């Protein structure tokens, strides 16, 4: 008896195991049956109830060397403008998810968002509020929170229709642009994570990067005819929001101001007229930014003290006022003048950003957060009126610059004649 029982249990377990192992294949997805979505663009459709979602699918042969001798015919020769590398498709729907589902109906492969790198939102939609749009991405488990959120003036779809020369595919191009965004810091690194943190915070209003297209248009001899109408994409500036609605744009320098204030500035260049020279310009690269910020209330007014310090290297100067003299002695006044010049430029950037913030009563610089950290109880009392208080704040910016290097040379080139004149 016991033996039969044991045998029965054994068979049961075996059957169970077999069923389990076979049925686990439900989520099986063969990798070549996936459509890798690189970017998503979301716009307001003509019908205000609907969203238009455009999905850019990267075709596997898009990267160099993929496929080899097998099937993938496209991408050969290299002269093409990348027509074979992506597939662009749009659909409309009441929510993002619905629209994506409709796209799936058109797609032979399953849309896979695991490698999504950026989400572009059109201006019209952004002005109505991005929270609901982002909610879908928030819940999606396939993607990660370091995808970029970008706002496009006009239609987001236009961005995806661009065909940048380098990196062929806009989603990869955007990725690349963000990677070396720090070369100039004229744009804002707004990842989904950063954006949502700002959105959900007590007082900060979010900022998102701005992306535009630049038409290239003209035909140069030797280029194929379809180059006409080609567009490149450009990452510059930012969009500021009030809560989750877009209110205005920042240009490059104002964006930099925000970065300075938020301690996110990494690297950039500053150009200004040479203070010691003759109306020519000089350019410094600026890096190593540090920020000290203090906020306090006095007589019902908010005071913000912002201390920024950074370092600079001279990269180009178009006059003969140098740091080191002819005899390689240091020219202290020049030195100080340059530092002051940089400092004033930085200060201008920050104040410009602050002006924009005041204009729209949006705390994009994160001053509220600082105030909360330093005076939590007071903040709680003032929280309801924060936009007003913030707008009337006294902001005091002090910038401290240290010029460190001048590149590979001690003195700039001077042709003989000029030197004689200077003497």
């Amino acid at each position, binding site marked *: 008896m016991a033996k039969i029982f*044991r045998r029965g249990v054994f068979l049961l377990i075996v059957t169970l195991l077999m069923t389990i192992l076979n049925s686990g*294949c439900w989520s099986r997805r063969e990798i*070549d049956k996936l459509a*890798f979505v690189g970017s998503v663009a979301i716009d307001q459709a003509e019908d205000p109830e609907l969203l238009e979602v455009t999905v850019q699918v990267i075709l596997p042969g898009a990267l160099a060397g*993929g*496929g080899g001798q*097998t099937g993938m015919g496209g991408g050969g020769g290299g002269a093409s403008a990348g027509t074979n590398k992506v597939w662009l498709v749009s659909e409309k729907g009441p929510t993002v998810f619905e629209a994506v589902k409709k796209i799936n109906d058109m797609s032979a492969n399953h849309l896979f968002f*695991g490698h999504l790198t950026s989400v572009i939102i059109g201006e019209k939609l952004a002005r109505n509020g991005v929270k609901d749009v982002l909610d879908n991405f928030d819940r999606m488990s396939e993607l990660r929170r370091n995808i970029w959120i970008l706002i496009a003036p006009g239609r987001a779809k236009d961005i995806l229709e661009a065909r940048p020369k380098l990196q062929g595919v806009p989603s990869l191009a955007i990725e690349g642009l963000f990677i070396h965004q720090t070369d100039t810091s004229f744009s804002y690194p707004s990842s989904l994570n950063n954006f949502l943190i700002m959105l959900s915070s007590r007082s900060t209003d979010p900022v998102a990067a701005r992306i535009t297209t630049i038409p290239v248009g003209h035909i140069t001899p030797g280029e194929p005819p379809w180059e006409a109408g080609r567009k490149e994409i450009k990452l510059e500036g930012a969009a500021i929001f009030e809560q989750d609605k877009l209110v205005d744009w920042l240009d490059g320098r104002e964006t930099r101001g925000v970065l300075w204030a938020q301690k996110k500035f990494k690297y950039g260049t500053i150009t200004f007229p040479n203070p010691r020279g003759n109306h020519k310009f000089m350019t410094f690269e600026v890096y190593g930014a540090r920020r000290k910020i203090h906020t306090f209330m006095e007589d019902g007014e908010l005071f913000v003290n912002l201390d920024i310090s950074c370092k600079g290297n001279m990269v180009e100067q178009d006059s003969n006022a140098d740091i080191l003299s002819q005899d390689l002695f240091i020219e202290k006044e020049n030195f100080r003048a340059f530092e002051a010049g940089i400092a004033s430029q930085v200060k201008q950037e920050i104040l410009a950003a602050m002006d924009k913030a005041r204009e729209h009563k949006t705390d994009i610089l994160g001053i509220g957060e600082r105030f909360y950290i330093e005076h939590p109880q007071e903040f709680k009392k003032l929280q309801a009126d924060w936009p007003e208080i913030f707008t009337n704040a006294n902001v005091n910016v002090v910038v401290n610059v240290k010029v460190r290097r001048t590149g590979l040379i001690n003195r700039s080139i001077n042709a003989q004649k000029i030197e004689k004149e200077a003497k």
Partner: protein
Amino acid sequence: MSKLFKSFKNISRKPYRREAQPPDQKQDKDFILVTNNLEQNRLALKSFLGDSPDIIFRDVRIGKSGLQALVVYINGLADTDSIADNVLKSLISEARNIDPVDLKQSTIDTIKEHVLTISEVRETESFQKLLNYLLSGDTVIFIQGLEAAITVSARSGSVHRNVSEPVTEAVIRGPREGFIENLRLNNALLRQRIKSPKLRFEELTIGSITQTEVCIAYLDGLADKKLIGEVKERLARIKIDGILESGYLEEFIQDAPFSPFPTIQTTERPDVVAAALLEGRVVVLTDGTPMALIVPATFVQFLQSAEDYYQTFIFASFIRMLRFISFFIALFMPSLYIAVTTYHQEMLPSALALSFAAARQGIPFPAFVEALIMEVAFEILREAGLRLPRPVGQAVSIVGALVIGEAAVRANIVSPAMVIIVSATAIASFTIPGFVFGLSVRLLRFPIMALSASLGFFGLMMGGFILFVHMASLRSFGVPYLASIAPANWPGQKDIFIRAPWWTMIRRPLDTGHQDPVRAGKGQKPENPQNKSGR
């Protein structure tokens, strides 16, 4: 294994009948004794052995007494020269010098001690034992009127090959000797290495028809007495008609017959055996095969090679770690590939995902089937390579794999990535020194592949856990299989993932050598002579 699961095993096994004893002539022979009638003995012998032309019956008369004697030996097994010189000559000529009176009174002793000049002499009364000796190559001497026979050992070198390097266990640095098929000579090889009186051999005869000699070797005082007793007991329990190879013994005495992992180490190298003996292990040598069995065996040993101990410790440690990594690669790599490309594509770096996708365009099979095809093809090629003559075989298996892989890629049957994965796996499994263990790994790959193909990374992990639990529960003659890994004890670490220099390995491994823990003196790290006395 637990009773719970033993009962499951019993279900699948057919009930086996215990009655049939292997054909055994034991019962008959035991009771037949040598009679004092020479003719009767001769007839009895002929009836047992039949009329084979290689059994020689030689009549002699001893010395001056005219006592009749019959010398029987097997041509080919016995050394005829020695017989002629030491037996026949002694019995016929030298015995003349002995007083016939003495001869008649204490014949056996006289002949044994005074006449025969051969080294090994025994007295037997039972025919069964007689036959054993005769068939092993000894010479039997019957004497008219005596109720016992004398057996004399004059075995020829017998047919055996020269001592040469074992093929499957070649090393770059180290001795090139391997065991051969003759048990005595194997014993000699061991004695040459361990010249200690502590080295003991105990012999058993197993196999009712083949009467194979099996020898247990150990170092007295070093090996655990319980272990020795256990080994002897398990060997004594074996009832089978023939033992042709140590593999037969292995299957009878191993701890977990259904486990894919070997719990007994096999080797052809005497230096490996000697090292094992020095660690307190027990070795079983079998006549007729060069493969020695070492018990107890733990997981770690199968990833060690003799060479680790001869090369410098830095190099050896590096190679050891490489082997551990290879072990994991050989076991998990195809499964990992299948799991990631089928279920977890978001885990790949984007560029890699795209290139995999591009590579797999147009392949008709899902990843799992692809992997299966390639792996099975590879295994077939490997087996084929073994059967072909040596120089051709190696080339065929490797080149064959590459060529077939290449052709398969071109024909769009498999993707290039899969060929790479499979080749990497195969190469990794080649680095595993223990051949049997390598087989286990090759086998185990398949169920894990199946698991990961159906349940992705989760399945892979569960497979890994099941394996680990199985290994953790395994014991080899009382020693836990994962001895120094789980639980990890500090001194054991010196010899697992790395090989610590000899001057640090002061103690023997705890599980087997605990009788006599210290093996080397302390403080022997080589030092620059200048540093010593500060001069």
